[in-house]
């Protein structure tokens, strides 16, 4: 079965984010970019399905500027077979990303589509669910276990109260949570091999999707900083401060 994986290029999760002085956004000039951590988990899951003989081909797709091809190459080095780059320099919001991915799904007809649960830049947590709605597929969001079983996939989901397992008809959409797996690192020979794997590039217009953002960011500010606190000498002082100064116990 064919598996489609969507990967997004985002700021590296270790980078300290700085808001631009003019409050138009965060400073992305010369900062390290990387694959969204949840997307790495999505790629890893697809590769494991292939290693188990469940998946036959892994197609990885990314929407974004030219440089997003780096993340596609990373996915190819990790074991994906083929890449699709939808190139645009415009801001792509979740609904548009879902519409673009829907167009790819219609062309590629995968049995399983795996996305991250959340981009660590927008913190949206929307695209997988929107794609599932637009394609009329079932969705297994925040997955911590994925088991393909005949024409169904069983997904264990991390929910507020604990874990919940659902069975979905295939084709289906799965979004990954952190504990689904631990992504591997790409080996040097695989990074070299990935350079020769096929990578198609196209524009949103080629897919018949117009980029028309519905949300406008009016401003971006730094969060209010907390007042620096004090160090207490011992437990007795701590309890005293909590009781008599902060009055929270």
């Amino acid at each position, binding site marked *: 079965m064919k598996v489609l994986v969507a990967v997004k290029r985002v700021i590296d999760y270790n980078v300290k*984010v700085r808001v631009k002085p003019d409050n138009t956004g*965060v400073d992305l000039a010369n900062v390290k970019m990387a694959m969204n951590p949840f997307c790495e988990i999505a790629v890893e899951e697809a590769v494991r399905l292939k290693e188990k003989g469940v998946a036959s081909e892994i197609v990885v797709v990314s929407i974004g500027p030219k440089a997003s091809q780096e993340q596609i190459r990373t996915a190819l080095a990790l074991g994906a077979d083929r890449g699709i780059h939808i190139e645009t320099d415009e801001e792509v919001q979740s609904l548009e990303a879902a519409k673009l991915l829907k167009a790819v799904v219609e062309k590629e007809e995968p049995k399983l589509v795996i996305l991250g649960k959340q981009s660590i830049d927008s913190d949206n947590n929307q695209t997988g669910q929107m794609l599932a709605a637009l394609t009329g597929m079932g969705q297994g969001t*925040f997955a911590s276990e994925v088991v393909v079983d005949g024409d169904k996939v069983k997904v264990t989901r991390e929910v507020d109260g*604990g874990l919940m397992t659902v069975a979905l008809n295939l084709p289906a959409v799965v979004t990954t949570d952190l504990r689904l797996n631990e992504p591997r690192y790409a080996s040097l020979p695989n990074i070299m091999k990935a350079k020769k794997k096929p990578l198609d590039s196209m524009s949103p217009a080629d897919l018949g999707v117009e980029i028309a953002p519905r949300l406008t960011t009016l401003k971006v500010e730094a969060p209010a900083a*907390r007042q*620096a606190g004090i160090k207490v000498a011992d437990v007795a002082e701590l309890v005293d401060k909590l009781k008599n100064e902060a009055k929270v116990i």
Partner: protein
Amino acid sequence: MSILVIAEHDNSSLKQATLNVVAAAKAIGGDIDVLVAGENVGAVAEAAAKAEGVNKVLVADNAAYGHFLAENLSELVAEVGKGYSHILTSAGTTGKDIMPRVAALLDVAQVSDIIRVESEDTFVRPIYAGNAIATVKASDSIKVVTVRPTAFDPVAAEGGSASIEQLDIVKDAGLSSFVGEEKAQSDRPDLASAGIVISGGRGMQNGDNFKMLEQVADVLGAAVGASRAAVDAGFVPNDMQVGQTGKIVAPQLYVAVGISGAIQHLAGMSDSKVIVAINKDEEAPIFQVADYGLVADLFEAIPEFEQELDKVCS
């Protein structure tokens, strides 16, 4: 303006988060209706009808909604919600699962996890794990929004007298089915709404040692949370994770024990009123956000903390 709030509940009781979402709806202004969808939800509907500021409670009671499957619920919410200017619910895992699907069915954008209402179409929300705060304006005719409950003081649970109306809309998409669940059982307060939270990190070393925190929690009437590292290491279950990708908490008192203070963890707790950090590394970043920092070995400090608290709390 007319606002549809999707109630969060477990089929037997209304979650307090719904009252926070109604508060967000009040900040937008207009008539507020609450949709209670589930199975055998009579008691939930009655509780929702008593909430302050609610105009009408709509009830969709059917087995198809019993497990809150997104495929079924989203079709219901999209159909009921298309007559409203706003559809709101809390940014818990159920809301996050359903609302983007509702938005896509209605062909509108979704605004996630708002912490403030600026006007009927403009909302404030954290991005980049709370390292930046964005003000966004939504241009669609229906605004589909998830609300961070801790950012809005709840409306009163009693005093309202909304009418209750049964809906006869059954949506079974036939795409998914419920297989099973493992619910964490705990007599302690709910992590997301507790007044005091004590969380442990990798420094706890193993799951057994979390008993030390549970004992402190019992003295304080607190909930117990954890860092991702502690969850990943298998010390405690996933529903205890606090952070960017776990639960967001904002209690009166948050005690971080053996937690370094990674930005992803801070994203989930830095709105707490008072933060205490207990860590043996005086350079740990958690001390930069802590009101009271104690540099100590937790295995000595925690038993002592429990004893001292026992004296002042009893």
